């Protein structure tokens, strides 16, 4: 890119060609007042405040900095008498039309308009003020719009359109009557991401969760990581007197560039929820009694010792947490493996898809990753396979939209449902395949790529191995058969294949619909094959670019819990547990000797063992298997067999209700540590407040119990655990807790040297497909997925999120609904062989005919109670409201 030299206020600066003066000044810490320009958004030029004197090609003229590109040798003066006079006049006009309610306005103290008025030393204007008296719009639970304070800068309109892709608001009317509003003044119906709130320079948009409970100058701002989905956005907690008052975003921090979703921005009220468990609880005669910490810890350690003496350690099971930090999960597996002497540990994500860890590690080893999730912004082709981006990982959707805007990226979306992903891509191919046909669809795409020679086959053949068997396996794929089975037309398959092989970076994101399919393992292997096929970095010098693949995990630390080895087959850092040399290394580090139980013997998982009565005691740290494990009834049966259950959690979850001892653990705002997101980036949490009530952090609880049981877990701070992780887990060997303050850690980057040393071997799996159909009595097929508004107990205890999405719903295709005579909003019963649940119906075209969709994120409607196989047949009928 060509660099331009220019002078702003006697300071020589260099800026890339095409930058506007405003951005160039901003990058060089030169202040130009302005209210409508925002680096994230397209240029608007509406506020008229960034007036500057520009001398270029020997002409001195006045220009608006945000609308004028830099040019070579340009001289810009920001503060001349003329310029200031103009600015003051503009401010007079703006203030003449602005409600001067600074004492009651929440924005006061961080308001752009207030700051500029203060800087320019504004006095009462010459103009007769026309105060607007429009009523404040409070038609939704999280945002309020006060049009009297709006200066029509248009930032919220652009943010809504460009970043969130929704376009729920726009300008209305013309001239003096111009206001911001929704179409036909209907209530705001959007994703409630709060992007408008974040970019608004005045107090027109307000956060209703704050409710006047603090002023910007009273708050302490602590950046930390969002506890909801697996993207790992940086959020800034504003605290006052030891409580979290609101969440804001910072454009300069983290991978999300200040973009958040509704959960991240408004779902913080659970931290101070009255339903938090605040003291340890011990169950006596079926009732929980509050207890002292010492008593509860003594009871747990005695009981665990008894069980160990009676049956041996391997009858104790441990379930790690996808919500706790890496450090806590590391300590948890160390506690189970050393103190309890059991290898019967697992986490929910691994129980759902035990093959995923190995395949992810393989994809990383092959170099199919980018530096962080942010790499999606550099993509030229985006392939979302079996993942509902908007609902599951909304901020990745924002990144994808940025890629579409900057690189005019193409989008290919394959999903069994017609998912919503609002974007402006020129090519947006939707492959709505029928359930169970995902593998054959992928094979058809590969066949088209190979047959039409869309990639340089010779190069691929030379740089990979087993390519011939891939060719022969796709030979058998009949395209017409694939077309028929998947319900995707051949034309669409061809255009998808063409888009995927276009030069440039290709980003593949797959998710829940792929992973939790019976053919999930094969599909992901085939996806890796596809990745290797279109990864042109090794094959072609003409079209530089590479393929990367991401798995959309469910929780914020689903990746970290697996990295830390809370799985039966791996020690921390994907080290094979059955290898004696590896074990010896860890034994040396931990200073212990493993008992004979520490091996991964068979394919039985924890639940299978519990079903056979081989688990006498269960230790659950920050997980709720009862609502998260796919087969709800099965796990409920298993847990009944267990004698003694210990749960560490912040809320009384379904699992905690069955426990014998519940320890109150602190939430993300009250602890330090690290989370690893779905793009393998490890980021650091910062403690914002001290633990609520008598709660303790999970690692402290584990240390206390271990000490009571006679082992030295003498960690004083998180940093000591981090140092140990560094030594124990090879993939975390470049990890430094102090450095995380400045830069996040990305473990696949450490493997970069190894990449390319060995050839990629194609899996070449023959196409498989499943027939997924309902039964006679239960004609519909139930699928579940993430919800944007909710995720587990945290969101259910946040008032704002509950009022945005109060009820669980079932999405029914409009044709099916018509046949069953169900109207939108009816109360319906969803019934399977296992049970029934009452919820609201949502008649939509999102779900194809024969498929109903229920989000699995509402804890009060545990949809897993109905599920007993991957695609559960259900029936739906209307019931009375109460």
């Amino acid at each position, binding site marked *: 890119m060509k660099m331009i030299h220019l002078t702003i206020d006697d300071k020589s600066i260099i800026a890339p060609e095409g930058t506007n003066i405003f951005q160039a000044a901003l990058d060089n810490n030169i202040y130009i007042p302005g209210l409508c320009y925002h680096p994230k958004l397209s240029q608007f030029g509406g506020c008229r405040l960034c007036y500057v004197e520009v001398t270029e090609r020997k002409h001195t003229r006045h220009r608006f900095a945000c609308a004028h590109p830099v040019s070579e040798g340009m001289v810009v003066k920001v503060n001349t008498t003329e310029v200031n006079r103009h600015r003051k006049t503009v401010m007079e006009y703006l203030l003449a039309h602005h409600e001067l309610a*600074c004492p*009651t306005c929440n924005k006061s103290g961080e308001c752009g308009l207030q700051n500029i008025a203060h800087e320019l030393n504004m006095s009462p204007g010459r103009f007769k003020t026309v105060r607007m008296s429009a009523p404040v719009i*409070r038609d939704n639970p999280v945002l309020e719009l006060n049009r009297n304070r709006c200066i029509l800068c248009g930032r919220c309109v652009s943010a809504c359109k460009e970043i969130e892709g929704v376009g729920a608001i726009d300008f209305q009317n013309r001239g003096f009557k111009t206001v911001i509003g929704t179409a036909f003044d209907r209530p705001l119906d959007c994703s409630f991401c709060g992007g408008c709130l974040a970019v608004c320079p005045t107090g027109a948009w307000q956060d209703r969760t704050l409710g*006047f*409970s*603090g*002023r910007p100058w*009273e708050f302490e701002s602590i950046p930390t990581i969002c506890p909801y989905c697996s993207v790992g956005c940086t959020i800034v907690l504003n605290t006052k007197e030891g409580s979290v008052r609101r969440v804001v975003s910072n454009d300069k921090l983290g991978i999300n560039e200040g973009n958040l979703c509704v959960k991240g921005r408004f779902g913080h009220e659970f931290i101070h929820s009255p339903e938090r468990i605040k003291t340890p609880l011990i169950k006596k005669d079926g009732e929980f009694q509050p207890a002292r910490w010492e008593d509860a810890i003594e009871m747990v350690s005695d009981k665990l010792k008894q069980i160990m003496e009676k049956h041996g350690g391997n009858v104790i099971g441990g379930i790690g947490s996808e919500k706790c930090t890496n450090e806590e999960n590391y300590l948890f597996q160390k506690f189970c493996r050393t103190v309890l002497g059991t290898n019967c540990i697992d986490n929910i994500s691994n129980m759902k898809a035990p093959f995923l860890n190995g395949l992810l590690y393989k994809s990383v080893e092959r170099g199919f990753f980018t530096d962080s999730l942010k790499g999606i912004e550099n993509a030229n082709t985006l392939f979302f396979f079996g993942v509902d981006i908007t609902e599951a990982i909304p901020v990745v959707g924002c990144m994808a939209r940025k890629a579409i805007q900057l690189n005019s990226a193409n989008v290919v979306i394959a999903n069994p449902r017609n998912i919503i992903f609002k974007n402006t891509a020129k090519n947006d191919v939707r492959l709505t395949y029928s359930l169970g046909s995902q593998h054959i669809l992928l094979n058809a795409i590969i066949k088209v790529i190979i047959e039409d020679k869309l990639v340089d086959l010779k190069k691929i053949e030379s740089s990979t191995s087993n390519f011939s068997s891939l060719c022969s396996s796709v030979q058998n794929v009949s395209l017409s058969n694939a077309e028929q089975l998947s319900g995707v037309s051949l034309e669409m398959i061809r255009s998808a294949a063409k888009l995927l092989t276009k030069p440039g970076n290709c980003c593949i994101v797959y998710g829940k619909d792929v992973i939790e399919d019976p053919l999930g393992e094969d599909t992901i292997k085939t996806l890796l094959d596809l990745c290797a096929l279109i990864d042109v970095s090794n094959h072609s010098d003409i079209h530089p670019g590479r393929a990367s693949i991401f798995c959309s995990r469910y929780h914020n630390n689903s990746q970290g819990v697996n990295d830390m080895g809370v799985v039966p087959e791996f020690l921390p850092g994907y080290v094979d547990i059955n290898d004696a040399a590896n074990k010896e290394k860890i034994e040396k580090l931990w200073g212990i000797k493993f008992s004979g139980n520490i091996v991964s013997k068979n394919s039985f998982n924890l639940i299978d063992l519990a079903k056979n009565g081989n688990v006498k005691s269960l230790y659950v740290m920050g997980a709720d298997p009862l609502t998260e494990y796919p087969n709800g009834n099965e796990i409920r049966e298993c847990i009944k067999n267990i004698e003694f259950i210990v749960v560490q959690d912040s809320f009384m979850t379904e699992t905690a209700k069955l426990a014998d001892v519940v320890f109150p653990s602190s939430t993300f705002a009250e602890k330090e540590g690290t989370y690893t997101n779905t793009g393998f980036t490890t980021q650091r949490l910062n403690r914002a407040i001290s633990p609520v009530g008598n709660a303790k952090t999970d690692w402290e609880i584990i240390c206390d119990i271990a000490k009571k049981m006679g082992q030295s877990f003498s960690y004083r701070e998180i940093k000591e655990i981090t140092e140990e992780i560094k030594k124990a887990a090879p993939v975390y060997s470049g990890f430094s807790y102090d450095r995380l303050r400045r830069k996040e850690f990305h473990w696949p980057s450490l493997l970069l040297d190894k990449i390319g040393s060995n050839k990629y071997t194609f899996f070449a799996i023959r196409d498989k497909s499943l027939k997924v159909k309902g039964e006679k009595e239960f004609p519909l097929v139930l699928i579940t997925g993430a919800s944007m508004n909710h995720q587990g107990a945290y969101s259910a205890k946040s008032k704002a999120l509950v009022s945005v999405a109060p009820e669980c719903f079932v999405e029914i295709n409009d044709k099916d609904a018509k046949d069953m005579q169900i109207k939108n909003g009816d109360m319906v019963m969803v019934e399977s062989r296992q049970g029934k649940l009452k919820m609201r119906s949502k008649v939509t075209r999102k779900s194809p005919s024969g498929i109903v969709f229920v989000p699995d994120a509402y804890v009060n409607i545990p949809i897993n109670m109905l599920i007993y196989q991957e695609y559960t047949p259900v029936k739906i009928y209307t019931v009375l409201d109460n």
Partner: protein
Amino acid sequence: MIIPLMKGLALTFKRFINPFTCVTESYPDIRPRLAKRFRGLPELQVEDDGREKCVACGLCAKVCPSQCISIEGAEDEHFRRYPKMYELDSFRCIFCGFCEEACPERAILLGDSFELATDKNSGILDKEKLLESARRKKS
């Protein structure tokens, strides 16, 4: 030397025979008359409808040099901003009057009460206490 002495004695004698120029305050039997700009304990003011004038903007708490004011704002049923909690530590207050100066709503004024000696351990006044005198004056 003798002349100033005589002058002084003359003044003494003048005061002695004229009781209207008496400067001795017979406090606490009679409450002294205070200057107009006397700065006593801050008092919160009330609106005509009996609500507090304060909108919990927090400027008084910010400007207070002895940090004796703490405010917790909230939203009432008409979506108005009001102080859910307004506390003033009378032990810490130095009667500087900055709060009065900063207040955009003239909701806090320095009153005329100065009898603050107490045998209690804490001098924290809550919102109701601070509103008491204004409410009494209104009614």
